[in-house]
């Protein structure tokens, strides 16, 4: 557990992380073990905004060109939207481009942003400061990603796209260096991996082009990049966001963002609070996973945060109706893989790192990347040429689009905060003023797991005793996420360690869903609690795909 001689106070999470299980994630096409096989023109893994926008654009273009395309979308959740979670304040431009005949009022948004406020919080009070230009949201809309995904799903199905919910993509099928499809996860296995009466074998879906739209920390995207040695200037960085949806007694009329308390100064992040409706409030806390304090617990910090007068005044007397968590790729421009297309495959959205942290936007980039991929893919299919050179059209289109322009402008902002809140804040302000030109040189970052953590007892506030009215335990949160994962499914987390109570405690604090507990000096794993946020995959035991339908059932997150 020691990092240097005699220093028992620091450790590197990376030391205890198992390697990516490439032998499971990449399979030779034709490997035994599959039940049914299906052939498609295009297979999309992930029915989030990127995957569905890609499917819709493909179907629309094909229709326009009088071409018949068989398009399949695999989604691990039991129903559309159940694994989708975001703030969210959405830039409508991708929607307008995808649905040019619709008015904004036809789009799946809740309300336009009218007022907004940014605060710097202290334990007891707040200081309002002018909204930084990167965070101005006029012209944008408050929305629920679940509602967006369900709406997009209906449009896709109406266009003849086959959306297969409850089927996770578990492995890439390859032929030489070429990706030829995906194998889904089996279902109906017991804890020891033995088939039950309801056993359904994995399916192989073969396609001319496979689109990876898995979202944050996608396993197949990671596997492909590792296998094909596609790297980026910086490793991808992640933040963990814990979010709740409340029905409130008091009305909220503005979107709010905060910085500062309750985050320690060596952690990057902030909070958001958005009114989906005056009495339906979404709020959450986002913290970069490179935090130094090994005892930091994002869920706990979020619970504590709600007691601050700014939030408390809206939440008092209300009811928490949903809870959830998800990681967000934060590395920005320098962490986007050198190429996001290859032999038989393209990568979209969060899986490719298309998220702009300073403006907290990712949904419209995800959709735009999906639409650009669709155009490139249709062109390739029509020309009968799905070679890497042809699919690289997608990369070219993305580089020429606002996706890369926006990410480039803010390329160092998040990264500046690795030096702490004040230095980072100063640098970020300078970058804003200079449109990203100064400080402009790439700031080098380490992988989150390679950032040393210290365990100093008493530094982090102790666990909050939840009151069940404003603050809640992790178990209560998991219940409100709608998670009813079968308790007897095989464990899906790969733990690579035999060891100390401190590391178990670190995992226990890391995971917002209470999957890990430190019990009698050892690690207890409550895998069915997992809500697929992927924080564990970033800093701890590896996440692998499990039976379809497992995990949360978000409704309006």
């Amino acid at each position, binding site marked *: 557990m020691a990092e240097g001689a005699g220093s028992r106070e620091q450790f590197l999470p990376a030391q205890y992380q198992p390697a990516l299980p490439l032998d499971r994630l990449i399979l030779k096409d034709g490997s035994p073990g599959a039940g049914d096989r299906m052939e498609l023109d295009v297979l999309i893994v992930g029915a989030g905004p990127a995957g569905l926008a890609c499917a819709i654009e493909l179907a629309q273009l094909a229709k326009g060109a009088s071409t018949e395309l068989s398009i399949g979308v695999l989604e691990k959740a039991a129903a559309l939207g159940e694994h989708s979670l975001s703030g969210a304040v959405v830039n409508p431009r991708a929607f307008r481009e995808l649905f040019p005949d619709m008015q904004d009022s036809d789009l799946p948004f809740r309300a336009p942003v009218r007022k907004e406020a940014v605060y710097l919080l202290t334990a007891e009070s707040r200081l309002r400061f002018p909204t930084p230009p990167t965070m101005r949201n006029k012209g944008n809309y408050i929305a629920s990603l679940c509602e967006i995904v369900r709406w997009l799903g209906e449009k896709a199905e109406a266009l003849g796209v086959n959306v297969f919910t409850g089927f996770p993509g578990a492995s890439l099928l390859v032929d030489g260096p070429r990706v030829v499809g995906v194998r889904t996860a089996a279902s109906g296995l017991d804890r020891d991996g033995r088939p039950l009466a309801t056993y359904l074998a994995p399916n192989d879906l073969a396609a001319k082009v496979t689109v990876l739209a898995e979202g944050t920390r996608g396993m197949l995207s990671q596997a492909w990049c590792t296998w094909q040695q596609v790297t980026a200037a910086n490793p991808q960085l992640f933040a963990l966001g814990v979010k709740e949806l409340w029905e409130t007694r008091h009305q909220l009329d503005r979107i709010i963002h905060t910085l500062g308390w309750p985050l320690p100064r060596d952690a990057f992040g902030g909070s958001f609070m958005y009114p989906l409706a005056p009495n339906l409030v979404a709020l959450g806390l986002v913290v970069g996973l490179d935090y130094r304090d090994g005892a930091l617990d994002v869920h706990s910090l979020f619970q504590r945060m709600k007691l601050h007068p700014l939030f408390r005044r809206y939440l008092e007397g209300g009811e928490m109706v949903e809870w959830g968590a998800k990681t967000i790729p934060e590395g920005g421009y320098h962490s986007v893989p050198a190429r996001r297309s290859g032999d038989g495959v393209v990568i979209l959205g969060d899986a490719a790192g298309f998220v702009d942290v300073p403006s907290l936007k990712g949904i419209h980039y995800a959709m735009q990347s999906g639409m650009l991929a669709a155009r490139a893919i249709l062109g390739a299919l029509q020309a009968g040429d799905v070679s890497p050179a042809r699919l690289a059209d997608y990369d070219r289109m993305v580089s020429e689009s606002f996706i890369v322009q926006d990410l480039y402008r803010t390329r160092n902002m998040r990264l500046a905060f690795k030096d702490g809140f004040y230095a980072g804040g100063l640098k970020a302000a300078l970058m804003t003023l200079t449109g990203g030109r100064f400080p402009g040189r790439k700031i080098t970052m380490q992988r989150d797991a390679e950032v040393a953590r210290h365990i100093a007892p008493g530094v982090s506030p102790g666990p909050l005793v939840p009151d*069940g009215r404003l603050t809640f335990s992790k178990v209560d949160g998991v*219940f409100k996420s709608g998670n009813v994962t079968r*308790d007897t499914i095989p464990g899906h987390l790969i733990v690579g360690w035999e060891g100390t109570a401190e590391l178990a405690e670190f995992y226990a604090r890391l995971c917002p869903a209470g999957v890990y507990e430190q019990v009698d000096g050892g690690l207890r794993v409550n895998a069915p609690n997992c809500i697929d946020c992927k924080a564990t995959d970033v800093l701890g035991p590896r996440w692998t795909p499990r039976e379809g339908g497992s995990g949360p059932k978000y409704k309006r997150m």
Partner: protein
Amino acid sequence: MSDVLAVAEQREGALRKVSSEVVTGARRLADALAARVEALVVAAGPVQGADQLGGFGADKVITLANPAFGRYAPEGYARVIADRARAGGYRAVVFAASAAGRDLAPRVAARLGVALAQDITDVTVEGGAVTVMHPVYAGKALLKLKLTATPAVVSLRPNVFTPVQRPKAGAAEIVPVDAAAGRVVVTGIKAAAGALDVAEASIVISGGRGLKEPANFKVLEALAAAFGGRAAVGASRAVVDAGWRPHADQVGQTGKTVSPTLYIAVGISGAIQHLAGMRTSKVIVAINKDKDAPIFKVADYGVVGDLFEVVPKLTEEIRKLHG
């Protein structure tokens, strides 16, 4: 004056306890209608305990008898009850929502061409109409329903209409009836396999991590035994996940939802996941050494203390009660 027909139940020639609930409920309705209660039981011959029904409010007790009716015969019972209801011009017909009642009431209602309010928890008269309460959405909401046809056919949820004894005893009569051979024949009853299921038991005692190790569940099993076969031992998800107890015993999260008359949570802290499974229990008792455990907020009665001292004492006292 139109009366209320209360359909009692017998098994093997003895009246089932739920019959007193049916008559109690029928009496409540009859009082609101200023009507009389006629209790009815279908059997092979005289039914032991039928004459007690007067003590629960029946003005008259009729046994419809035929040798073929010893065991429940769905079609035969439905026919004779419907015939009686039609002939007697009753204002209401009341069943128990027991296994037999839930099967029989719809058949009778369909034969009479009227609606059935099944599994109700309260019955009154409002504006001249029989009005009932019925839990829906797994008890998360209550529906108030009005029956507009006559007779109003209802079935009562068991364990809700607590029998109320009255000093009066009604007249009992045996009426022979014809039994057309029904097509559906009950050929026997066998014992349920294995121990009482947590979802069926009227008393559930659930244990959590506070029991410290699997062997200590003995303590709960002893308490369950003291209740004389009416109690089952359940478990929180934590102990099921730890492999201490089988999944079939799990209460809460994806284990079973239970709604017993009495739920005793021992060494369980009361996370929402567990509470969701037992929330609709009639009475909840919690035993836990942590006075701040969330379960005390949900329990009707709580004892703060060491379960290894409290539970054996409770077991001893329950044994004494059952003599």
